[in-house]
């Protein structure tokens, strides 16, 4: 292995993932730790990256949340209109659900309406007795 190349890769690893070995990709961790254990230059780079992480910890910790901000956030969160809730939950949704079977019925009916029975036949079927219908069926067969 080329030491110069490995140092470059090690430096790139530190720049991309920081100095904490647990944060390094598992595929590179073992190689990186081996290099760190054997190379003084790698150790210098690692110490520098560690110092940067520690200094960033010190820099980034100093941002206290203003007192009362949580209360302000919650106070400014709009409440939903109870009338709107009542309308959507108590009226609108049941109406939509109630209409659903009707809509399905219409859709099914529309699909089976390709071969409509004419009005005269519908009246006949509705009002004729069984004997009349059987007689008509026999006439149609002949």
């Amino acid at each position, binding site marked *: 292995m080329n030491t110069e190349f490995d140092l470059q890769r090690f430096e790139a690893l530190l720049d991309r993932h920081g100095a904490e070995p647990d944060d390094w990709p598992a595929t590179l961790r073992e190689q990186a730790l081996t290099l760190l254990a054997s190379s003084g230059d790698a150790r210098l780079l690692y110490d520098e990256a560690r110092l940067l992480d520690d200094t960033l910890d010190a820099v980034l910790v100093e941002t206290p949340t203003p007192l009362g901000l*949580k209360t302000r956030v919650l106070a400014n969160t709009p409440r*939903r209109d109870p009338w709107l809730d009542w309308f959507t939950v108590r009226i609108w949704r049941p109406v939509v659900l109630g209409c659903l079977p009707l809509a399905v019925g219409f859709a099914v009916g529309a699909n089976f309406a390709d071969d409509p029975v004419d009005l005269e036949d519908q009246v006949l079927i509705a009002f004729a007795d069984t004997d009349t219908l059987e007689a008509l069926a026999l006439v149609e067969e002949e």
Partner: protein
Amino acid sequence: MARVKAQDRDAFAVLVERHLATIHAFNYRLTRDAEDAADLAQETFLRVWSKAATYKPNRVKFTTWLHRIAHNLCIDQHRRRRPMDDVDVDTLDGDEADIDQLPANERLRHAVDRALADLPERQRTALLLCHRRNMSNREAAEVLDISVDALESLLSRARRTLRTTLRAYR
């Protein structure tokens, strides 16, 4: 978050309690202004409340979604006011004479703080998101809406710049 989607205010209060400090700190680091950071934190949570129904838990982690909202609001605000890279570093922490009196580790902290403020906005954001594994590189890339490679390139440039600052103070 499912309860917040159903507009449960108690659940929302828990969510605010849990994430407010993180979002405020993130906003403060991006804006360098305590008042702006607080206003933007409030706006961030207001968006969470009003857009909760659009959140897709199977597509993105809540913290990623939350930071994306906060970041976009910070960007929008600074586009309206001034470029985010124009942070006035001279107003950060007193004048040079005071700084020279500080112990070595404090001077180092101060130098890194200034260098961080001087970083281009996207490099600074990438570092803030990923420092100490706040987020994985993949999640941070989602916040910034860039590829993981592009995110790692931002991190790389940011850390190199800060390491150069460290060397000058050691």
